């Protein structure tokens, strides 16, 4: 029940166009989670460190807690909910995270997958070191990252048409 004047925002999220009137100070993460009811992206800190809120905006990784919704006006956004194919087939990254045990509590996972998605677009066949530095803006408290690295390698291999390693351990 804010007294601040609402402003219009138009965004395309996961291929669908949304128009809303929002407080100019509303953060993009709250817009996505509460206005659009897409709760896959999470909030883990207040300082742009953890990356749990990472989404893809106009092909780039953004921490949606660090932007206002109004700054996304006109943008095209992909969230974790838009990663699987319309027929439900999981993206290679989603499959890789499961196959390689790249997640535990699942809280960082949507942000981690969205970050990895852009990373693999920029660098389709990254080394372990490149993956580690590429996901350094996303924190995970459960996995120790080792199997996240393997999950991203799994996806890279699959997307490059190589045979993929069977399972973790």
């Amino acid at each position: 029940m804010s007294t601040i004047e609402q402003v219009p925002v138009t965004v395309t999220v996961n291929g669908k166009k949304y128009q809303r009137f929002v407080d100019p100070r509303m953060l993009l993460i709250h817009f996505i989670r509460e206005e659009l009811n897409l709760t896959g992206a999470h909030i883990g800190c207040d300082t742009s460190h953890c990356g749990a809120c990472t989404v893809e905006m106009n092909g780039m990784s953004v921490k949606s807690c660090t932007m206002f919704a109004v700054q996304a006006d006109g943008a095209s956004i992909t969230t974790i909910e838009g990663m699987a194919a319309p027929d439900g087939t999981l993206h290679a990254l989603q499959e890789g995270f499961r196959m390689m045990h790249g997640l535990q509590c699942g809280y960082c996972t949507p942000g981690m997958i969205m970050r990895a998605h852009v990373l693999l677009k920029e660098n389709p066949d990254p080394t372990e070191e490149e993956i580690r530095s590429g996901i350094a803006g996303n924190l995970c408290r459960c996995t120790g990252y080792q199997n996240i690295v393997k999950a991203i390698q799994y996806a890279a291999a699959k997307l490059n048409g190589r045979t993929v390693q069977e399972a973790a351990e």
Partner: protein
Amino acid sequence: MNDMTPTREQREAQLQGMGCKRKRVEDIRFTQGKGNYVDDIKLPGMLYGDFVRSSHAHARIKGIDASKALALPGVIAVLTAEELKGLNLAWMPTLAGDMQMVLADGKVLFQNQEVAFVVAEDRYTAADAIELVEVEYEELPVLVDPWKAMAPDAPVLREDIKDKTEGAHGRREHYNHIFKWQVGDRPGTDEAFARADVTIKETFYYHRTHPCPLETCAALASFDKVKGELTLWGTFQAPHVVRTVASLLSKIPESKIHVIAPDIGGGFGNKVGVYPGYVCAIVASIVTGRPVKWVEDRMENLSTTSFARDYHMTTELAATKDGRITAMRVHVLADHGAFDACADPSKWPAGFMNICTGSYDIPVAHLTVDGVYTNKAPGGVAYRCSFRVTEAVYAIERAIEVLAQKLGMDSVDLRMKNFIRREQFPYQSALGWEYDSGDYYMAMQKALDAVGYKELRAEQARKREAFKRGETRELMGIGVSFFTEIVGAGPSKNCDILGVAMFDSCEIRVHPTGSAIARMGTKTQGQGHETTYAQIIATEIGIPADDIMVEEGNTDTAPYGLGTYGSRSTPVAGAAIAMAARKIKAKAQMIAAYLLEVHEDDLEWDVDRFQVKGLPEKFKTMKDIAWVAYNAPPPGMEPGLEAVSYYDPPNMTYPFGAYICVMDIDVDTGVAKTRRFYALDDCGTRINPMIIEGQVHGGLTEAFAVAMGQEIDYDEAGNVKGASFMDFFLPTAVETPYWETDYTVTPSPHHPIGAKGVGESPHVGGVPCFSNAVNDAFAFLGSTHIQMPHDPWRIWKAAERLGLHQ
């Protein structure tokens, strides 16, 4: 049999039972953003709560003026201690037998303490309103240093109990004293020390830190005035305990309180306790008649809801000159902050600190723990460990190194010489525990062989010579730790929380068509219970794991249990699963005997079926039996195929492991690089090797964080330093070392499936391993102990003290 009949191996593989690397069921929803965490839940008419917090560490409250906040459109209510007093809820009991303010009552005792609770239509308005609440403070002297807590002129922190000489754990010696806890044989220990050839004494400070799960604590309370029912969603590692406490506090019958823990984004001990935010959300919902959500932000999380450690451990060992340890003496000064909100079993004010004799056959020992109040946040939770075991293992594993240094022995040789030997199990420790099983020597030897320990020491010797000659500015440290955990709390004879015995439970219902649901008293926070519990059931009763649904966290449907922490899920609930499954199997055997027209004793179990001994073609599968159990049971038998088990463990379990770390330290920058980390864990029977490996990776990473930089520190005025990710060290993928994992298997003899639990071992064993590596690097220069956390600044300072920068 035709060719289509599956072989025994195929049937076994189809079950995906114990021992296989079953992929996780949970991941299907988590990888698609379909998890359901507390903040994802939205109810019609939902309000948001937010706290006004104290800027001072110790101050009297002269007045609170909420009028400006209440005038802001969208603000519904502002609660203070005065409002809560009307409901007798201004204070709440802690798990440790103390009382804690829900909202500041008369004074504040730590920075960021909860002073008032603002309830508003949305979270932005709530955040605006807390800025408008005016609180007038009168500053009081601040007590930060626990060593000064019991000084005659120390400020009085807890005016509510300043004249009480008896606390929840016996006599209090000072108004800032909480308890003195003593275990062991004092005269015997004194005598052994007096006779010893060699003794060492060192004070190890295990600094204050925080479990810091990626999801902060949160609750959503919805009180239905018409029905008189409360539904509470929250980040609860122990939902049933929350229900019981909520009932005791609110006087609402427990049957009318529905506690639901949905998906939890990591816990690590943070989400065991009951926090003011939960209580205020409930009260606000009762007062406003609308659902109220409270979600803490990261700074609130790090600075208020629980801390871990903060133990000053003066540790002494006595030994013969050839390295036989003859006695141990430990004194702990425990900084509990403003309220004793330690999350330990109620009779254990210092948790299981008395496991501090570690993996060694030490004939006599004595432990004293003094708990004191300071102007810091309350807590004392078991951060990825079983109730102070991390502290205990740190004390003994550092002390072993210091003793080895004094004896001029390799610390591995000293460990080997003093290990509890395989034939000594079950082993009675000097401080009162009965270790169930172990083969320490074999595990240590396997670790040494795996890393090439002798060659590492030779390399280190060469590097030290090169350093002395000025050819390098890098020192090599080799860290070794050998730990014994004590998990699975616990036997009702010595473990309870607020009088509730620490059993755990499982209810299994096999449906007529042969699938099943299992409901549990525990609550996963990432451990993968939905996957592994089904594997246990699959092996026990022959239903494929994919056909078994595991449900946790709903207190209306789950049997009462004490929750998940202290690595208790596998040792206690895992046992309850096996026992419930065996009840089902016993009934199934009777039905199979009836159907096959043989005596029960003429049947044998084979993977997924009972078959007639010697006639494997005559069988009934569990699926066949399930249908009959409901629709055509034997005459006189009750229909149905379900069972409940409440398992009260006869003993704790004692997982163990051998860890070795190799580090290279630049003495000019203080940067320590972990070159190699090898972890061997023995958690008894292994249910899912993939998940075990994942747990070990995660525990080691948290150990790395704690040992190498993570801390919650205070300045002299009681300002909490570093309570955000700007300063609080959470390693990224770049800093985190690569983990090598290995194992041995020594089943627990008293557990139905022999499993011991693993989630916390790597943290418990990892911290001393890292710290030993840093200390080992400098040991040849005469340094006996460098305090954690070993961030580059502190390592640089240690090098400076040792004259390495001249």
